[in-house]
């Protein structure tokens, strides 16, 4: 019984939040890694693109809610998602046409493109704050819980509670679906294969008649979809605030680099590595230890390695370790 309690406590505060956060990071890191692999620069505007996409979804969700369209137990935001993706895709293609293409044609160094993306980041940042404001916005509706803490306790009679929120479940399911579709697209379709060829060797790809502009546009479309989905899931699960989306840039890059930049499998693995490290290092293990250890060894302290304030330090630390000892990342991406 004690072991079961320990497991439930662990699941409630570490496994489930880590799984949801990892899925969100994986989707974000996939976008970063795709841009790096195909367009060959680190896109600093990624976090704010995510904020922009989520904002589009939120505005449409509010409009749906106001005219009475609902998805029953599921959040209305899921219905608004395709529209949000379309708007974000349009904005990203517009940005590419007006900004990135100019530097691509000139064959600028990657570092110049990075600086350009920093400029795009600031503009996106301002646009989002201008349209929706800097504050928290809530747009989640539908059932809050799949299993609430109270029902779980009544069902099982355990001391510890396990709560599964609808948004958490949706996050994990959506992430799995999106990743499956993306890998199918990259590995099985003609366009996907041409993207991989372009990423592996640009010159050979051009020789074999692949249209580079088409590859670029498809990449931006996929990135728009990934960021909007990641942002909406994060917003549903936690809350939407432009500044926190900007802050997500660090864990995204950490995840992409840990997994190996340019490698989609690596991005997913990296997302979960970062998420679980952040959660486990800052979790206070006292409760779990009290249940599992014999009474005489029960700890007095909290058994917390780092205070929760240092969450971001964890991703930064892992990033440094990986760059020092395995610069190509866990899954042999490109070295930075």
């Amino acid at each position, binding site marked *: 019984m004690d072991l079961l309690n320990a497991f439930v*406590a662990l699941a*409630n*505060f*570490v496994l489930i*939040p880590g799984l949801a956060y990892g899925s969100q990071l994986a989707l974000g890191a996939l976008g970063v890694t795709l841009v790096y692999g195909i367009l060959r620069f680190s896109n600093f505007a990624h976090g704010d693109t995510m904020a922009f996409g989520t904002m589009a979804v939120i505005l449409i969700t509010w409009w749906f809610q106001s005219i009475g369209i609902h998805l029953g137990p599921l959040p209305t935001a899921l219905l608004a998602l395709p529209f949000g993706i379309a708007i974000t895709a349009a904005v990203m293609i517009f940005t590419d046409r007006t900004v990135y293409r100019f530097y691509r044609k000139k064959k600028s160094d990657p570092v110049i493109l990075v600086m350009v993306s920093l400029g795009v980041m600031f503009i996106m940042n301002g646009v989002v704050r201008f349209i929706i404001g800097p504050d928290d916005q809530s747009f989640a509706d539908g059932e*809050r*819980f799949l299993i*609430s*803490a*109270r029902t*779980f*306790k009544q069902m099982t009679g355990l001391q510890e*509670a*396990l*709560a599964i*929120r609808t948004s958490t479940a949706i996050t994990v399911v959506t992430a799995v679906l999106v990743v499956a579709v993306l890998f199918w697209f990259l590995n099985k379709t003609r366009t996907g294969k041409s993207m991989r060829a372009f990423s592996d060797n640009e010159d050979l790809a051009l020789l074999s008649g692949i249209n580079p502009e088409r590859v670029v546009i498809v990449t931006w479309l996929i990135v728009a979809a990934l960021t909007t989905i990641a942002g909406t899931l*994060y917003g549903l*699960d*936690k*809350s*939407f*605030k432009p*500044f*926190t989306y900007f802050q997500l840039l660090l864990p995204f890059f950490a995840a992409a680099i840990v997994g190996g930049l340019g490698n989609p499998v690596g991005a997913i693995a990296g997302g979960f590595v970062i998420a679980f490290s*952040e*959660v486990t290092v*800052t*979790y*206070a*293990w*006292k*409760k*779990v230890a009290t249940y599992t250890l014999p009474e005489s060894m029960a700890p007095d302290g*909290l*058994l*917390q390695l780092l*205070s*929760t*304030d240092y*969450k971001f330090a964890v991703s930064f630390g892992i990033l440094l370790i990986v760059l020092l000892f395995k610069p190509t990342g866990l899954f042999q991406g490109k070295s930075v």
Partner: protein
Amino acid sequence: MKKLLLASAATALVAGAALAGSHSKEVKVGIVLGFTGPLESITPGMAAGAELAIAEINAAGGVIDGTMVTPVRGDSTCVDAAAATAAAERLVTSEGVAAIMGADCSGVTGAILQNVARPNGIAMISPSATSPALSTAEDDGLFFRTAPSDARQGVVMTEILGERGIKEVAVTYTNNDYGKGLADSFQAAFEAAGGKVTLSAAHEDGKADYSAEVGALAAAGGEILVVAGYIDQGGSGVIRAALDSGAFSTFMLPDGMVGTGLEERFGAELNGSFGQHPGTDSNGAAAFQAAAAAAGFDGTQAFAPESYDAAALIALAMQAAGSTNAKDWSSKVMDLANAPGEPILPGELAKAIQLIKEGKDIDYVGASAVELIGPGESAGNYREIEFKDGKISTVKYR
């Protein structure tokens, strides 16, 4: 050359005096509150309270033989000391305010006191800064507050928990002067009374997700969670995460957390949670609420009565000193607020001015039963509240 300089200096002096003369029939009072930021949902009520008092003074013919009081608002942001200092500096230098009603949060109040009020010799009365550190701050006699210090709130919280038979609590506080001050004074009082604080952990405002913080608090355990935070910021985020994960179901809500925003956000989920904020059931409170309702705002909002009292005290002290200069009137505040004298309730400011003119003593009771002690802070009356059916209801006053 020397003559020219002298002459221009003299002209400037005369011009200055003339300017001062033309302004003598108006005195400006700065209302510096966090109209944006983590207290933005309660500051409109606070400003309305202060402006109600000023309107009442003006309806009675102003202070010192017909000088009308004009309120000027400034935004303290509650959290950004630099922005608050700039706002107060602007009020003092370009608007020429003679007094400041504010600020609201403890950190920015301390910053304005040291950077603006003391250098410029402007007195300020804060309706809601409750950090114990302000009791001992250097103030040149220019700082008062109609809110009690949190050292007192810590004792009241201990009493409430004692009556409810709660022995073990976890504490989380917003990482600033207010949160830390309250958490420390509560912990000291609670442990002195034999209670146990399992963990006192800070949370940062403005995060998307507080499940990690709640995870640590849940691991430490405790019968309830004391949330010494802000209602429009991390405080609500912590409660959301704690409810969602089933870590805590009952919360103690100190003054920064009591507001209608909680009812909208959580409703019945908070049933059984309790807390306290400065308040009183004196006749003054009822009179103030009636006046507030007539003026079109909710007089039961946290710190609205204290704001009314702060503004009223500023005006009455000016009347008593016969001067709008802070050096003259700040020494009168304590006399006016305390016995002996004729008790003054909200709506009786005209009578108070009349009594002062006649040279009689008054004892300003006001909307929050003001009684200033020690370094010029309220002795402290609290309203104990509890969530019932998703609404905040009064348990009793203490």
